[in-house]
Every structure is written in C-alpha cells, then in structure tokens.
C-alpha cells in the first residue's frame, strides 16, 4: 500500500534545493519538530509538576511505553516492505493468554513458556505471510481476518474465562499450576533497581532492529521490497521471502510484547491488549515525522511511543482526566501526520 500512495512519484521532477529563509525554516521544522516538542514537554511538565522529572517517574513512563514500542517496531518492519500488520494487538493478547495457559494449566517453566509463546507469534506471522504472499490476499484484509481469528481463538481454551491460579477448566477440573516467579521477573525486575527489565528489552529490540533495517543488506532489501517490489525482484531480490520475514518479525515481536504484559500483570486477562494495536500503529506513524524521514523507521517509532507516553504521563500528573487520553493521542497523531505530509512538504 505504500507504493500505491506514492504513485505520483513516477514523474521525474527533481526536488528543488532549499532556498530562502522559508525553505530553511521548513527543513528545520521537518527535522526538528518532534524532538523539540519532546524537549519542550519535558521542561514544561517538570516546571508545572516537579515530581514529573523524578528518575522513577521517567522510568515508569518508559516502562509504560515499552510494549507499545516493541509492537510498533514490528509494524514498522511490515510498513517497510509495503505491508501492514493489523493482527499485532490480537497476537499480543493471545500471547498473554497462551503464556498464562502454559504455566497455569500445563505447569510449564518460564523458559519453556517464553519459547513456546514466541514460536506462536512467529507462527502467526508465517500464517499472515502465507495468506499475503502465497494466496495474494491484500495485507490489510489478511491481517484483519487474522486479528478476528485470534481474538476469538484465545477465548476458546478457557471458555472465555481469565486465567489465574486455581482456574476452573471447561471440563470442570481445576488447573494445578501457577505463574513461574522467574517469568514474573521479566515484567517486574529492574537493573540496579532503576531501569526496569521491559525498558531494557525495548532498548535491545530498538537497537537490533534499527541496525537490521538501516545498516544491513537485509534491511536494504526489505525497504527495496516496500519501495518497488518489481524492481527488487528484477534485481534478484527474493521479495516473497523478504515479506515473509517481515511478518514473522512482526508476529514474534508482538508475542514478545504479550509476554511482557503477562509478566507484569501476572494473570491472563481476556481484555488485555485492547488498545495495543492502535497505540503501536500510532507510534509507527508518528515515527514518520521524527527527523523528517517521511517513511517508517525504527528509531522514529520508539521516539513516537515515548512522545505519546511522556505526554500522557505529564497530563495525568497535571490531573487531566483519564478520559481525555485517547483525544490527546489522536491530536498528536493528527499533528504528526500534518507535519509529515503537509506543512513541511514545500511547494512546486
């Protein structure tokens, strides 16, 4: 779908070089707007509410956005190949249920659970790829269908009940297992008591995926597939395999996000992950505006997630009511998209 909205790009008009102060201001706005706004918010919020700038509060912001950022990175990778993964929210929610089921019902250990759940995410990604690459189902439709499938599937093993110790199964028996304390540490441990483990996981994912997408041969080919699939195939690129890889990465990252949620909550809630899809897509789209790239990029996505997190946390500390949150997110997204596509585009 990215190639579609770039149809106008087929005309070989050279971009005019920047000239005049208006042009320079626009370039400056394009590259600096999001970082400047982020810095302005940090300063503004800490002046209004000194507790905001506490290390503990900053870490809690990062912890709150870590899952969204991890999922957003997955979306970014699918956007890079010209696709879109709508199933990530459902994958994360299913992973919460699957992790709980593994430990509570099957009595598995933490390592086995993590491996199984990540494999589940990768399998969903491969199933998406099968629909999209082999059966040629448009990516939005395929992943939307997968989203419905998973949202329903996760309810079936427990007949719609949330999973916690002592769960009564559909056949009347009581589950014997419980959450592995080691598993809970994934969500609750922190480095030197300061940096929560989920934040470290997010940082590691960000660095690894940034290097993969921006600095490696595979990254170059992923973006090439999204930019012009025909040209990539004619240059010998295995575009089908690349798109499959992107959906597998996205599915795996979504299940990793689910593991973090499960480890923090410590139970398998049927309602978990409701807003994860929208928030992570928003982060990826806000990421377009960061550094004025106008394209999916991993660092932009992480900054986008942090941006929204800082804004929501700051407003909460200033006693803004909780029900304004979605409105604020929407306003940020609208602003970022206007900035990406409209204001900084220039004329001619």
């Amino acid at each position: 779908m990215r190639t579609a909205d770039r149809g106008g790009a087929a005309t070989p008009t050279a971009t005019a070089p920047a000239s005049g102060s208006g042009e320079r201001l626009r370039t400056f706005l394009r590259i600096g707007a999001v970082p400047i706004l982020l810095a302005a918010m940090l300063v503004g919020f800490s002046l209004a509410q000194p507790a905001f700038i506490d290390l503990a509060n900053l870490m809690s912001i990062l912890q709150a956005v870590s899952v969204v950022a991890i999922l957003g990175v997955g979306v970014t990778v699918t956007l890079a190949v010209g696709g879109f993964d709508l199933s990530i929210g459902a994958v994360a929610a299913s992973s919460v249920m699957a992790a709980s089921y593994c430990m509570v019902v099957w009595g598995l250990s933490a390592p086995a659970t993590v491996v199984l759940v990540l494999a589940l995410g990768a399998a969903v990604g491969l199933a998406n790829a099968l629909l999209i690459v082999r059966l040629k189902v448009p990516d939005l439709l395929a992943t939307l269908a997968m989203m419905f499938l998973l949202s329903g599937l996760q309810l079936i093993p427990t007949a719609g009940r949330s999973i916690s110790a002592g769960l009564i199964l559909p056949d009347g028996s009581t589950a014997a297992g419980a959450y592995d304390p080691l598993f809970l540490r994934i969500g609750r441990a922190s480095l030197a008591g300061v940096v929560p483990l989920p934040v470290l996981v997010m940082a590691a994912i960000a660095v690894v995926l940034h290097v993969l997408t921006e600095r490696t041969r595979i990254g170059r080919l992923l973006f090439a597939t999204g930019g012009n699939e025909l040209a990539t195939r004619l240059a010998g690129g295995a575009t089908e395999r690349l798109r499959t890889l992107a959906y597998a990465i996205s599915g795996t990252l979504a299940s990793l996000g689910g593991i973090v949620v499960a480890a923090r909550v410590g139970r398998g809630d049927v309602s978990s992950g409701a807003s994860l899809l929208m928030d992570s897509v928003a982060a990826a789209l806000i990421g377009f505006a960061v550094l004025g790239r106008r394209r999916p990029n991993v660092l932009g996505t992480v900054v986008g997630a942090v941006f929204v997190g800082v804004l929501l946390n700051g407003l909460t500390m200033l006693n803004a009511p909780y029900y304004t949150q979605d409105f604020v997110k929407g306003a940020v997204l609208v602003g970022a998209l206007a900035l990406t596509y409209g204001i900084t585009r220039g004329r001619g």
Partner: protein
Amino acid sequence: MPLLEARSLARSFGSTRALADLTLEIDAGEIVALMGANGAGKSTFVKIVSGVLAADAGRVAFKGRPYAPRTPAEAAAAGVVTVHQSTDLVGIPGLSVADALLLNRFVDRRSPFFVSHRSVRREAEAMLREAGITLDVERDFADLAAADRQLVAIARALAHRAELLILDEPTASLAAGESQRLYATLHALRRRGLAILYISHRMADLETLADRVVVLRGGRAVADYARPVDFDAAIETMIGRPLASARPDARRLTHEPVLELVGARLLPGRRAFDLTVHRGEVVAITGVLGAGKSRLLSALFGAARLAGGTMRLAGRPYRPASPREAIDAGVAMAGEDRHRSSLMPPGWPGESIAATISLPHLARWYPSGLVTAGKETARATAAIARLGIRAGGPAASVWTLSGGNQQKVVLARWEAEPGTLLLLDEPFQGIDVGARRDLIAAIRSQAARATLIATSDPEEAIEVADRVLVLEQHTLRDAHAQEQAA
C-alpha cells in the same frame, strides 16, 4: 497577432535556472515542436503555460490578453489543454471509453444527476466525431492500446473547446504503426485551426508533424527552424556539438555464441524460432507494442517462461526459474520503464545513485551482511566518471537526475559486475538525443558480453545495433534479419 505569446519568461528552482528569458510565439493552426535536451526548460515552460507552475518573471499573453493560469483547470477554461505522456490516468480500467470521455462532466456537475447509458454513449460518440477519431465507446478502457488512450485524452481535451493543445511526448510509448493514427488526427486538428505545441524526442514525429521547430537550450529559445526543417542542424544546436562526433563505431564480430535459442515459442501455438547472439555483438529486436519483445526478454531473464524450445547460455543448458538465477548465470536485464522496473520512489531508502547501482550486488559486495557506504560509493563514483553521469555525487538521489542520466545509472548497475548477456528493454524511452548517443557509445564499448536490445523505434534499433531483428506476432521474422555493415 499570435495565439500565444511568451515574453522573457524566467523561472528558477533554487540555484538552478530552468528558464532564463524565454521568448516564444505560437500561431493558430500551426504545429510547433519544442526540442531540447533534458534540463533545457521544455517541461518548465509547459508547466507554466498549463498552470502547474508560476513564472518568476516575464509574461504570457493568450489571444492578446494577459494570461497567468493558477491551476490546470484555469488553463483549460481559457482554452489551453495539456495531454501528458502517461495516459494511464485518463480513464479507469473496468469502465468504458465513454465513461473516460465524460469523466470531467460527471465530476464538475455539468451532467444531470441521473445519467442513462444511452445518453452517455451518444455524448461520447459526439465527442469522438468532433475530434475526428474512430473508436468504439463501449470498449473497456483497460483493453485500449497506448495509442487509443492518447486519442481518448485528446478527444477529452478538445471537448474543453481547446485552442492550444500541448502534447508532452505523446508517442514515447507508441510503436511506429500506432503513431500514424495519432499523426492523422493531429493533421486534421491543425486544418481546423487548432494550435499544437508538440514535445518529443522522436525524429520521426517531428519530421511528419512540425511546421516549425523551436530549439531550447539553457532555458532560452536559441533557434527557430521553419519547414523544411534541417533536423541535423536542429539536433546540433540542441546538444551543442557536431553530430558526427558520437556516431557508433564499426565493430568486428567474433563467432562465439553466447545465447542460443532453438525452437523457442513465446506463446503456445505460435511459430517457433531460433536466435543466436554472439559475444561482443549488439542485437536489436524491434516490433510493435505487444509483439512479444518484453516477453522474450523476460523469458531470457527468468521472469517468465518460454512456452517451448531450449535455451543455451555460453554453451551450457540455461533454464532460469527466477531473475536471481539469471543474474547468477551472468544475465542482466534493465526493464522497460525504468521508474517502474528499476528505481526506488523518491524519499525512500535506496533512492541514491550508489544504492540503485548496488541493489542486485548486495550479497556479493557485502558478504558480512553489514552495508557500509565504502564499496557502493566507490563503484558509483567510478560509474559517474565513466558514463559521464551528471549528478551531485554518488549519494545524490536518482530523482534529481534527468531521464538520460537515470538510464545511465541503470546501465551502470548492470555493468558493475561482469556479465555474459545484457538485456535492455526500451532503454532510450523518454531520453534526449544527446543522452541517447552517450548510452549507445557506452553500450557498444563493451566487447566482452553480448547485448540484446528491445525497442519499438526502428531508427533507434539501426542506430545502436550490429544486427536488427523484427519480432511479429510473438515470432521472429527471420527473412528480414539483416546484417548491418555499420
């Protein structure tokens, strides 16, 4: 009084002066051809006259009144209509020709809210009659040949009561026979007093059509030739150097076959043909659009399958299942329409000259998987120097280049690694005469490989090739295979 009169037009993009003091007149009932190398200012002038761009200085008068359209719609309302190179956007696949013709009226509320099939048909037929075009209005737009799409675009333009029709490379994608129909229509329109501004790189077009040729260079009108036009002089003025300096060299052929096709069929049931291409040879395959040129090249490149027959490459059986296999076997293809088949969109990673060149070679150049600028930058810098690509540097976007320079980058991509067979599908599409000569010289300078070129322009074929073959109805017309002495 001229119909359109432009005085001292100027327009800059940053530090680049696209137009500098351009003065030009067009009278009613004449066809004026605009010639100029890429970057001479042709498209900027067209954009100003058609309301896409505003001029920085100078003025334009149309029918004696000041004329400065702010949008293409304003220009059309005044009587200036532009038909662009790409006509895919004229109609909508799945809808009929009649719908394509009346699209504007549906949109601008001039038609009644309820439209009957019959009234649409009647109006569309009237529009075609008005333009002197014969075409079935019930046909699906998707089934139309490129020439018919042009005609639909022209008919629609005329329905605006156009007095000046601007055609931007209308024959770029037409085969010779199709162009004839376009010429006939344009001649008929001129007799009715329409002024036509015609932009084309094809000599055949200009020779048939132009009453007057205006040559642009450096944003100025530098020469004006009336009929009979001395085209050699016009071209020399346009490229700013004598023609003879870039004629293709004569070549000595070896008899070592690189590619051998035996009993090849492009489609089931078509006549089989043989084809042999030797080392160091440049062979051109010409034929109308849809004759099977692209299909043949795709089959050689593993992007399509032959319906029958065997292929041998350098003496060994060759049956590529994918472009990757073909590339690994030493076969390269620069596809038709470089924007679609070779380049990344603007603003997207991989749009730089260096990345465009390195795309097929990433695995070989970066075995560790980590892409560093070093190798591809070095290769791109070398290619820029060797092929005379006019660019800011290896990191510049291919979208800052003119069409001819883009095509040189695409050629550089496939020359970056030694190959045995190079396939070029319409490599001279939409590039000016100067760049074409450079490309031909570059193509012919390589003696180590065989080159097979598909082109629908017979003149281009003769200009570039040692041997010209004609493909007709998906089979080679072998009787006419001509050895060219060059």
